[in-house]
């Protein structure tokens, strides 16, 4: 009798365990299906939002997707499929090498070592959202960028349009990224609502042509960060009870040296020259702001300007600054020993980049931005359609440089120029795609 009861209990327990197992398996499969579905959607199979059309979930297929076509994409030096990246390929991430839309016939671009075609004057480097980009300092000009969806690092030859994926370290949802000298890459992500900064160097050893990004976690205390393409050092702003600390350190956070602590203020940090750091109060329409050169003390650069944004000059020449008083936007040039001169274009200094000591290039909205432009622009609530102008700061003149096709509707942000002064790269604030403009026709 007891044995019979025992067997009965064991049987019931086995059935219960089986049911739990089946239920658990069901939920596991359901979860995986949802994840795969999300990945599929992320790859753009059914996304109708323009910024992601063709993005295929942020992969290298987006690189060099030029309007007129001229580029090729490679994966590392080898460009061949590998076992380690098979899973990513399955997700549609980092697929390479592959032909680009409108990239010409395979024969024309099969030889990547000797590209025979030049890029168009104006072309889209990456359709996929990009977290950051910069020209690298060195003997040959390269545009290095980091994908937002994957954190992968790419190098692009601005002349040929050839793009090479360098890394295989997956870091999803990179909101900001920076390129330093010596293959230094900084990637900033969100973890539980807080920003976390990952600093790394591209490994010198590769597997199937792809290198790892050996990241060090710099923590979540950093508010603002900036780098220079010719330095492995970084500048950070951190908030403490005592105020804002401006700190210079190696890319890994080692050798941190506090430059100054400002007891109050809401700052961004700019690094226009190796020996010059600028702190500028974050801007809002109609709110007065100031900018300072920062050493152990602050030295005013521009003070008490409504909606101030500023573009210091790397060559220690004149500076560009703009105001947004809440109703209108104005751009000025300030040269030593001279009165401020208003430029005949309506844009903000953040849309400009210096080409030489006295020549700058500015993206100018075709329509005058409406009231409260700057505050809304920072929140992503308004966008502009820009045209490129050349600014002669010495003569306070501006001439049209390049008109972007209205179908592109590009709202320029984060412009940068190559060391030779031939190319300007920038992101479209509407979708974070990456673009390049050759200055000379």
């Amino acid at each position, binding site marked *: 009798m007891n044995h019979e009861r025992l067997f009965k209990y064991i049987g019931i327990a086995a059935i219960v365990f089986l049911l739990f197992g089946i239920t658990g398996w069901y939920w596991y499969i359901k979860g995986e299906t949802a994840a795969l579905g999300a990945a599929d959607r992320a790859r753009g199979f059914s996304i*109708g939002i323009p910024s992601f059309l063709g993005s295929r979930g942020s992969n290298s297929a987006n690189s060099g997707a030029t309007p007129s076509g001229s580029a090729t994409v490679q994966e590392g030096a080898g460009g061949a499929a590998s076992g380690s990246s098979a899973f990513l390929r399955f997700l549609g991430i980092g697929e390479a090498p592959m032909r680009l839309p409108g990239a010409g016939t395979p024969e024309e671009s099969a030889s990547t070592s000797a590209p025979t075609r030049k890029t168009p004057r104006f072309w889209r480097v990456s359709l996929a959202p990009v977290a950051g980009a910069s020209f690298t300092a060195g003997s040959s000009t390269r545009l290095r960028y980091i994908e937002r969806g994957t954190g992968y690092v790419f190098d692009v030859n601005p002349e040929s349009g050839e793009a090479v994926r360098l890394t295989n370290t997956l870091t999803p949802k990179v909101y900001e990224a920076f390129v330093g000298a010596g293959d230094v890459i900084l990637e900033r992500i969100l973890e539980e609502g807080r920003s976390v900064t990952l600093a790394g160097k591209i490994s010198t050893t590769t597997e199937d042509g792809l290198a790892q990004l050996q990241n060090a976690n710099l923590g979540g205390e950093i508010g603002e960060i900036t780098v220079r393409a010719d330095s492995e050092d970084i500048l950070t702003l951190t908030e403490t009870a005592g105020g804002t600390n401006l700190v210079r350190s190696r890319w890994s956070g080692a050798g941190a040296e506090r430059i100054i602590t400002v007891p109050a203020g809401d700052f961004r940090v700019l690094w226009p020259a190796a020996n010059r750091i600028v702190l500028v109060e974050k801007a809002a329409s109609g709110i007065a702001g100031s900018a300072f050169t920062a050493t152990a003390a602050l030295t005013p650069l521009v003070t008490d300007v409504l909606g101030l944004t500023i573009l210091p000059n790397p060559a220690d020449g004149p500076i560009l600054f703009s105001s947004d008083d809440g109703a209108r936007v104005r751009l000025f040039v300030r040269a030593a020993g001279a009165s401020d001169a208003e430029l005949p274009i309506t844009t903000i200094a953040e849309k400009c980049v210096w080409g030489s000591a006295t020549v700058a290039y500015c993206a100018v909205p075709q329509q005058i931005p409406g009231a409260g432009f700057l505050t809304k622009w920072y929140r992503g609530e*308004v966008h502009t359609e820009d045209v490129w102008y050349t600014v002669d700061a010495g003569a306070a003149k501006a001439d049209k440089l390049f008109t972007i096709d209205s179908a592109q509707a590009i709202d320029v942000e984060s412009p940068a120029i190559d060391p030779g002064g031939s190319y300007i790269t920038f992101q479209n604030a509407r979708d974070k795609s990456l673009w390049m403009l050759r200055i000379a026709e």
Partner: protein
Amino acid sequence: MMLRISFSIILACTLALPLAASAQLTLSYPRQLTLTLSPENPAPGETVRLSVQSYTMDLDRSTITWSANGTPFAGGVGLKEASIVAGPVGAATRLRVQASDPDGNAGAAEASIQPSEMDILWSTDSYVPSFHHGRALAGTNAKVRAYAFVSFARAGGPRIPESDIIYRWLRNGTAVTSVSGRGKSSASFPGPAPLRSDTITVEAEAVDKSVSARASATIPATEPVLALYENHPLFGILFHRAIVGDVNTDEHEEKVTAIPYFAHISSLNDPTLSYEWRVNDMPITPDSEEPETLTITADEYTGPADIELSLTNAADIFMRSLGRWRLVFGGETGIFFGGSSVFGE
């Protein structure tokens, strides 16, 4: 003898005449002149406008000479105004203006320029998301922290340290003695009341009174702004593209995240916050872990999803933000900013 004495008296009187005349001029010299500087406490390199006035001389007919540190830099008949560029911090400039009219009257006035720099930098504890490049404005119940940047130097000397400067802070014209005093270069204040602006002023003076300056900052109260963003599975929250107006989507499911800019909170899931989501007038219970995020699953549904969010803060009775957006599932164009202007308005 009488003649000699008379001649002597006449001669003495004749010789004394110029002395008497001279004594008369000395008695009327100098005439009152008033020298005015604008601004009184210029920044280095700033142009200072100078003007001279007099109620006892006709300056329009007078020859006026302006000099700085003993060197004339402007002059002429009736030249009652001039300008000069202030030197660097610590480089004092002694100004002197002299005037003489055709009647022989003369006057002079002096002043000194002691260039200094002063500005108020401020920040608030209002919420803005990470990576936001705009200013965190003073929302309801915000606290403001201000720092008086001052660059003072005595003539030819080094900068005067903050510890040798006396700061007097004022909020809306009323002195705040608790945060004022020697070396008190920073101070905290409650933020402006709703719909109002606060003017924070600071007056700074070197302990030896050799130099002083004053600066003000206007800090307006700002209503917290609710912005809604797509929360993309691969790219995260698309902060660069707020949902404005009617937005079409071809997706069957959309995940969106609301960001309360300038709210007085520490994080988006601050326990004092209450998110009340409604979709097509149906209340939605927010996720306890991510109450700021809403996932709408349309399945086979096509048409509008009117999203409404009411956000209140138990710790801030003034905060009540309301946001309304419309997602159109199965929209024809699939254009994110469908129906909106170029500025999304």
